[in-house]
Each structure stands twice: as structure tokens, then as C-alpha cells.
């Protein structure tokens, strides 16, 4: 046993103590009400290889005994439902393609009540073993400790990929963002560090380099990345970004671009090229199709009306008019030429704004986030996940996944059967990852919150999960290796004019 596993050992022992000798009450009142539990795992669908689902009663001052049961296999826990990994895996193996039946008994005033049972459906579709995300407090300007973490979905193990405090010292603070992988491959990742020791980190098969992507010919260093599924080519949005704060609106903050473009970065040549630079188009969020032959992205058209004020002031004044549509360009991997822009989804025609296009691995569905305006939907309470069937052109809100609060960032699992969605459904402020099954016809199931060893963990935790991404395994480069590279000089990129232009 490794030293770092000792805490898990103790957790397992505690779970055994909690679940080992408990029996369900024999005398109780039967209720036709479902129990109020946190997280809400009632009738969710989970992958067969997911970590144990733990939950607790969401009613103060009441006792709980809960039972997971599949056939003659059962696990009974008191106070908190925390089965051990072995118990859980026995249950999920037996329930594969079926369901775990869950009984919850609650006791108030010495009287036990048995609630209407519910199910946890176990899909035989497995899920990628790892996700990564940035942990960030829901603040706006200040940041201190930021980490990009990875979490094994098959258990509760979480580790740091990189922590900005390794390179931060007070005023010389460092912001990190936009972790991204080439087709779920943890050996090929990139992220940005801003300000102190800033640059773009690109790790390819164990080799790490730091790139300075700032160049006079482009708006800014690369921002939102999209790594080609097979080529050493990363497309970025570049932008001049600002934020401003609502005095009373519940959305609290608006982040907007005054200018934005798309650039292409050739990793091997260390060259960037502009992919159009129309000042009336605000392009953002590029995304490759799985075959690497189409580039999707969003863009909002913005013509100036008021010449007496700055562009930034005008954007602030007209922020609700920023409506992003989804476009695409064909791409020839052999010649590396892009085709002309084509409209994919006209959100502005519905007076809405569509962002974050993500194509399913089978290439059929395009998930995106839809809100009333703008592109920073994580702070828009109305934002929802939508699905566009690329075969039929039919778009719909995924009501089976959405909640009454914010849904924003989303990512497909590599087998296309699961999506992970950033949602603020539990409190409207702290983003949590929720996972939902999506079948071959694009129909989703009720999503479940990322399971944790202590079901109360996410309620205690004061940071948001930002940009959850599936990975086929863990990133093996250590945080200190990244820090060592970040402390060094960045390699400046060369600018190459777009082909066909002087």
C-alpha cells in the first residue's frame, strides 16, 4: 500500500463500520413520497465503472438508514449511504443493464418511515476513467490558489495536475486556465498560464514546452483551444476580453469581447496564422469534428452604432445584443486549407446566443449551450444545454439534462455515451460536474453529480469545477515538472501570413 492510500484505507474502514452491522428497520410507516436526499441520485443512470454513489438525507435532525439492493446482494448504511468500493462494484456488476433498488428509511420523533423506493440504473456503457477540471472560487477579479486537478471516476482519488501557487508570489500571481487534450489523450495536453511566468504549456508524450503565443499580428495569446484530433495543430480563439458587473441583475457579471478572432497554431513549426480577422465578427470557442475535417466555432456579428463612445463602452451598453451563432469551416488535413464559413445554427434568429459547440464522437450530435445573450453562459442562470442533430438539423433543449439554473460547459466521453455538464443547479453559484447517459438517438438521462466519498463534500467545498474534460487516463507529468518549465523562458511563436495573402 502506498503512503497516499492510507487515508482511503481509513475511509474504507469507516465505511465498513458505518455499513457493516446495520439492518433496515422492521417496523415503519410506508410513505409514497420519495426521500429527500443529497445528492439527488433518484432514478439516475450511472456507468458500470463509476465510483460508489454516496448520499445523505437532505432533512435536518432526522436519522436515515438506506439500502442498496440487487437480487440477494444488499448494502445497508446508517446516516450516510457510503458503500465500500468492493460492495459497490459487486452491486453494479450484478445490476449491469438493470438497476440497483434503493430503499431509504427515515426516522423523526422515534418513528421510522420507509419512503417510496427508487432506482439507480446501471448502464453497461463504461465511462472514461478520468476527468480533469480547474478548481476556482466563484470570484471575478481576484484569484489566489487555482488548481487543475484530475479525478479518477472509478474511485475517489483526486490529484493535482498543476497548482498555480507553485509559481505565484503575491503580486506576481499566476492565473491558469484552458486545460485541453488531443482526443482524450492525457499525454497530449495544453493549458495557459497568464501574468507571472505566463505562457502556453504544451505537453506531448512526456515532453513539455512553454510557448509565448503573443504576437503583434494577432489580438492576444491563444485563449480557448481546440486540438486537432490527429494533427499537431491547435486552433485558438484570441480576444480582447473585459468584464463588468451588474448592479442588481442576478447574473452578477458579464464577460465580453471587444474583438476576437480565430488563429491556428502549428506545434511542429511553432507558427501561428490568422483564420480571418473581421472586426465585425466576434469568433470564439472553436471545436473540431471527430474526423478532423470540420472546424466548428461561434461568432457574433457586431456593427458599431455609436461612434462617440469607445467600442468597449458600446459593447457594455449593447451587451444584450450580442448573439452568437454556430458556424463551421471545412478543413483538409492533407493541405491544411480551410473552406469558407457556413452557418450551422442560427441562434440569433431565435433571439438567443449559442456557445460551446461540442460534436459527439460518432459525429451525429452537436451539443451547445444556449442563453439569452453573450457567451459567458456560466454566469447566466437561463443557460441550458441544447442538442443539434447534424443529420436532421433538428435542435432541441435537452430538458432531460437541464435544470432551472445554469448549465454551461459540457464534454462528451470518448465512446459518446456520456456527457459531463457544468451545472449550478444546487445553489446557483458553485459549478459542479454532472454526468448523464446519452443513447445513440441522442436522448439523455437524468444526470448525477460527480460522486464523492463524503456525500456532503460538495456542500462544504467552496470552489467551482471549471471545464470538466474526459481523459483516457491520468496526466503523469508532475506539478513540479510543469512548474519547472513555467519558470523558464517561453519560446516565442512565429507568425505566418494566411495563405493567399500578402
Amino acid at each position, binding site marked *: 500500500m502506498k503512503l497516499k492510500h492510507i487515508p482511503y484505507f481509513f475511509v474504507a474502514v469507516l465505511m465498513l463500520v458505518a455499513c457493516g452491522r446495520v439492518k433496515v428497520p422492521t417496523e415503519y410507516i410506508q410513505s409514497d413520497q420519495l426521500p429527500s436526499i443529497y445528492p439527488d441520485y433518484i432514478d439516475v443512470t450511472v456507468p458500470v465503472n463509476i465510483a460508489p454513489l454516496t448520499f445523505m438525507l437532505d432533512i435536518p435532525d432526522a436519522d436515515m438508514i438506506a439500502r442498496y439492493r440487487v437480487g440477494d446482494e444488499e448494502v445497508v448504511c446508517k446516516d450516510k449511504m457510503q458503500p465500500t468500493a468492493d460492495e459497490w462494484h459487486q452491486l453494479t456488476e450484478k445490476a449491469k443493464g438493470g438497476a440497483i433498488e434503493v430503499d431509504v428509511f427515515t426516522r423523526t420523533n422515534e418513528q421510522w418511515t420507509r419512503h417510496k423506493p427508487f432506482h439507480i440504473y446501471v448502464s453497461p456503457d463504461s465511462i472514461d476513467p478520468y476527468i480533469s477540471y480547474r478548481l476556482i*472560487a*466563484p*470570484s*471575478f*477579479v*481576484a*484569484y*489566489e*490558489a487555482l*488548481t487543475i486537478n484530475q479525478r479518477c471516476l472509478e474511485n475517489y482519488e483526486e490529484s*493535482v495536475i498543476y*497548482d498555480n*501557487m*507553485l*509559481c*505565484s*508570489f*503575491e*503580486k506576481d500571481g499566476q492565473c491558469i486556465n484552458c486545460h485541453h487534450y488531443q482526443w482524450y489523450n492525457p499525454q497530449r495536453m495544453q493549458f495557459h498560464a497568464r501574468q507571472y511566468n505566463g505562457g502556453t504549456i504544451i505537453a506531448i508524450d512526456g515532453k513539455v514546452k512553454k510557448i509565448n503565443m503573443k504576437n503583434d499580428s494577432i489580438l492576444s495569446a491563444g485563449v480557448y483551444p481546440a486540438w486537432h484530433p490527429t494533427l499537431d495543430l491547435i486552433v485558438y480563439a484570441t480576444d480582447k476580453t473585459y*468584464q*463588468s*458587473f*451588474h*448592479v*442588481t*441583475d*442576478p447574473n*452578477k*457579471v*458579464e464577460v465580453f469581447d471587444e474583438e476576437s478572432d480565430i488563429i491556428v497554431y502549428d506545434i511542429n513549426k511553432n507558427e501561428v496564422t490568422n483564420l480571418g480577422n473581421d472586426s465585425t465578427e466576434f469568433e470564439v470557442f472553436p471545436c473540431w469534428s471527430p474526423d478532423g475535417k470540420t472546424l466548428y466555432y461561434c461568432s457574433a456579428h457586431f456593427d458599431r452604432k455609436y461612434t462617440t463612445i469607445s467600442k468597449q463602452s458600446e459593447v*457594455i451598453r449593447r*451587451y444584450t445584443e450580442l448573439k452568437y451563432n454556430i458556424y463551421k469551416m471545412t478543413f483538409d488535413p492533407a493541405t491544411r486549407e480551410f473552406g469558407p464559413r457556413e452557418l450551422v445554427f442560427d441562434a440569433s434568429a431565435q433571439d438567443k446566443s449559442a456557445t460551446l459547440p461540442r460534436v459527439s464522437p460518432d459525429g451525429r450530435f452537436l451539443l451547445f449551450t444556449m442563453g439569452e445573450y453573450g457567451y459567458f453562459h456560466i454566469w447566466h442562470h437561463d443557460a441550458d444545454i441544447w442538442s443539434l442533430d447534424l443529420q436532421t438539423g433538428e435542435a432541441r433543449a435537452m430538458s432531460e439534462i437541464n435544470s432551472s439554473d445554469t448549465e454551461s460547459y459540457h464534454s462528451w466521453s470518448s465512446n459518446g455515451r456520456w456527457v459531463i455538464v457544468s451545472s449550478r443547479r*444546487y*445553489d*446557483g*453559484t*458553485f459549478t459542479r460536474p454532472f454526468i448523464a447517459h446519452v443513447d445513440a438517438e441522442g436522448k439523455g438521462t437524468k444526470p448525477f453529480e460527480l460522486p464523492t466519498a*463524503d456525500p456532503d*463534500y460538495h*456542500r*462544504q*467545498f*467552496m470552489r467551482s469545477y471549471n471545464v470538466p474534460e474526459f481523459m483516457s487516463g491520468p496526466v503523469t507529468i508532475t*506539478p*513540479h515538472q510543469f512548474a519547472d518549465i513555467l519558470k523558464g523562458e517561453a519560446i516565442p511563436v512565429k507568425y505566418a501570413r494566411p495563405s493567399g495573402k500578402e
Partner: protein
Amino acid sequence: MKQKKQKEEPSRIQGIAQSRLYNIIIWTVGLAIIALAMLYYEKDFLWKVQEMNLFQHTSLFFKQQMVVPGGMLTYLGTFLTQFLYYPWLGILLLSGCWLLLMWLTKRAFHIPGKWALAMFVPVILLLLTIVDMGYWVYILKLRGHFFVATLGTLFVTASVWVFRSLPAKYHLRALFLLLTAVIGYPLAGIYGLAATLLMGIVSWHIESKGWSAVYSLLAVIAVVAVPLLCYRQVYYEINQANIYWAKLPLYYLQQDYQQYYIPFYLLALFYVILALTYRNERNEEVTKPLRWFLAQAVLLVALVFGTFKGWYKDENFHRELAMQHCIEQSDWGGVIAEAAKQQDEPTRAIVMMKNLALGRLGRQGNEMYYFKNGAKPSDGPFTLRLMQVIGPMIYYQYGMTNFSARYSNEMGVEYEWRAEYLKNLARCALLNGEWKVARKYINQLKRTTFHRNWAKRMEALIGKPDQIAANPEFAPITHLMQYDNGLYNDQGNVERCLMRHLAACREVDDPYFQEQALLASLYMKDENAFWFHFTRYMKQHPDQTIPIHYQEAAYLYGVLDKNPNIDSWPISPVVKERYVQFDQMAAQSDGLTLDGARKALKPLFGNTYYYDHFLMSDLSE
């Protein structure tokens, strides 16, 4: 007879100096004086320290402290700091720690009883690390600082005591020295390293020359290597530059403020001297009573003088804390009583809190210029902005809850979560009707020992806007939550942002809000906004005497506009007369600098809007 008396004198002094009772009396009396001084002079500071603390009874909280070296000290420090909720209890615990420290120091270094007074040296230095904080109380990143240095020093002395008490066989001392570095560093940060180094020095006196060299070398290698190893293998949340200073407070903003480290340097020096002068046996006798007595007197004077000089006594700092304390208790009269005591030029924070209190009591229009006014920067080697001192609270009290919550969030991120930030976030969420996130913040506070009851009271308001509107604390704020929405970045200028938005709001009928908008137009010196709000004010208060400052503003703008109807306005003759006098005296002051004009006109007209309008513009926050 004479000879006999001379012989008796030293023995009596010696007896006193050597007796345990002497130690007990001198220590307890000294600590009692320190405790009473803190409780009397620093009661608001102690309140603030615990508000800026957070200790939660959860394993997650423990885990979060342990991700940096010395995490255990923060955990214990925050645990003990929470008891300052009852200041006497927190101070009692601190005094207990100091008593233990004195006893341990005496034991660890074989200090004879005659030098019991010297044991106050580390105590006074530790006291100074607390009472010299000043404005760092708002921004110091070391949570639990109030107890951390004391606990760390206790760790050092206890470790040295164990080290020198171990038998000199089986290399027990060497093992313990290494253990102190390897375990002590993760638990106590720099204090683990300090203990290791002191053991290396003490070994010179308790080991043979050869072995003491080995011990010293071992100590140096351990102190250099352990933090480096821990940094590479264990910790991800610390910069390499900080690894040797872990759990020392970071007095760094845009630059280092070394003066705040002086007590720490002296503390280290004190223990190094004790270690260097370590003896297995020391002479307990007072051989030269006069010299001993003089030495005690000099030491006592030095300790008292040092304490007095090092104690941060700035009036504005303490006034701000006292006012904040009153506001937390909705004691508006208390805020005004504090404002009335003001001697020095106040900071904008003091002026804003005074105005807030006057506004709550409906006295602002008549009295707000009758208190000391100004914009003195915060005292000290660095300037703290109003936003950092009272930003979230003042936005909350003025009903601009989005901005208030935003700053609490930003500060929570920058300085780690504190009870004060969480309370403010809970309050703002309740006022915004954001029940779910209100519950989250409230639950955070329910996991504390002393804020639990407050949290339960707030919990009872979730989902009950009617009860919130009727709640004595929330009610006036709900009247103010009528701002027009807009996108805005205040750039940290709280007062200007608030006043600008208040003055700009035109379609609000609520009398309290409307009067605040009128007052904001005075602050903004915005004549159009003034007339708009003043006209509405007059309609809303038809049969009431117009507050004096509104009369002054109306008359001033009337004169400036050469309004022909000015004489028919219901303005007191005294107001008119004072304006004429002001105008004449202002003309005589022509050519003076702004400061000169302020000085010249303040005695006679400092309590008028005329003075404020012409001489109190562009006040720095």
C-alpha cells in the same frame, strides 16, 4: 547588629528570587496586566480578529489546512482564535499558553528562578506580533495568526526540552532531532526548523565536541533539506520562495514590510542566546542583589517601554473597528457616539460609517457636517483602501448586494474564507432571495462553534421575504435595494460608486431611498440631481422643517444660478446669513491652496454644505 543586617538582606532577596511563589506571582501578575490591557484597549480589535477567523468542525477544513507546511499550526491557531468570540475566554487561553511557554522556556534552558522576569521577553515579543498588526488585520493571509506564533514557540521550547532531557544513548537525541525536522516542518513549518537548529546549538553543551559537531551538521542539513524535499515530494500549494518561512505571517503587499518581522527576529535571537548560553547547572543564588535588582528594573522598563512603543495605537484604526463593531450589532447610536469622540482627521471609512448611522436614525440631513470630516489615508507604511476596510459591509448596508457579495467573494479568495465574509455573503444572498446559495453559506457557518447560532437565525429566514423585510437589521436595507441595473466596474471606489448610483436613480418613491439619493447628490455636487431629488423630497415631506444641509444646498445652488425666486424659498435666515459670511471669507481666502483654504474656513463653516461643496471634492478612498 549592622553587620548581621547586611548579611540578612541578600538572603532575603535570594529567598524571594528563588522561590516558586516569586515566579508564580510575577508571571500571573504580569500576564493579568497584559490580559487586562488587551481586553480594555483592544476589545474591538479582538472582536475583529475572531470575525476574520474561521474554524470549522469538518475533516475537509482540517485537510485544507494541511496542504501547506505548518498546517497544523493554522488548524490549532484558528481553533483557539475562535474563542475570542468571548474576548475574555480567548485572552485567558492565550495567557494560559504564555504561562506554559514561560514555564517551558525556564525548564528547557535551565533558567534560574531569579531570572523569572526574563521569561516575559518572549511573551512580550509574541504580544507585539499581535498588537502591532494594525491594518494587517484586514489582509494578513496567515489564518489563526493570533495564536500561531505562540503555538509555534511552544513547539520549539517543548522540543528543545525533550531533546535535552533524552538520555545520551542509542543516538536518541540524533533521532529526535531528525524527527523534529521531518515531522515538525509539516506540522509547524518554520518553528519545526527553528527547533531543529536550537537543538543543534544546545548539543554543544550537552554532547562531546565530536558529537556536537555531528548534531550541528545534522541540524543544518535537516533544516536545508527537509523543506526542499517536502516541496518536491509533498506540497503543491506553496512557492519555493516561501518554503523556509512557512507559517510566518507574510507582511508583503507590493513590497516587503520588514519592520513587522522585528519581534520575530528578536524572538529568534532570544532563544538563540538561551541556547548559546545553555548550562546544565546554573547558579540559582543572587550573589549581587543590587546588580540583580537593577537588572530586573532595567529589564522591566525595557519590556514596558517596548510594549508601549510597539503597540499600534492609531486613533482612526481603532475608531473604524469600534464603528464596525457597533454596526454589526445595529447600534447606530454607538456609531455616532464613536464619531463624536473623533480627534484626528478621519478616514473616509469613518465618515461613511458615521453618515450611514445618521441616515439610519434620520439625522443625516441635519447633522452630517457637524462631525469631523476628511479623507486621511490609513496610517502605516502602506495604504489600505476603504474598499478593503469596509467595502463589503458598506455596500451591503446601502443595499448594493451584488457588489457587496462580489467583494466578500474576492476577499475570501484572496485572504481565504473568514466568518465575516461568509456572514456577509449569507446576508446578501438572503436579501437577493437567493435561497439555495444562502443555505450554503449559512451551512458553512453552522459548522463553526460560535457563529452557529447566528447561522440558525439566518436559516430561519430562508424563503421568507416578508420576515426579511420585517427584520430590524434587514428592513432598512430592503428599502435601499431599488437601484437601476447597469454594468459597472467600481475600480475599488466604493463611496464614489455608491453615491453615483444613488444620485442617478430617479424613479424610486421610497422615502428612505429617496432621501439617500438626495444626500448622494450633495456628495456628488450634482446640481441637477439635487434639484430633482430635493423637489421629490419636498413633496414627500410637505409639512416638515427642511433639514439644514438641504436648505444650505438649495440656497447655494439658488445663488449660483441667480434664481430670482430665492428669497421666497422657505430657507432659514441663519442659513442665508452664513452663506453670505462664507462667501465673504472665501473671497478673502482667494489665492490660498486648497489645504490653506480648508484650514481658514473650517472653524466657522466646516459644518456647512458650502464648505463641503467647495472644499471637500475628490476625496481619496
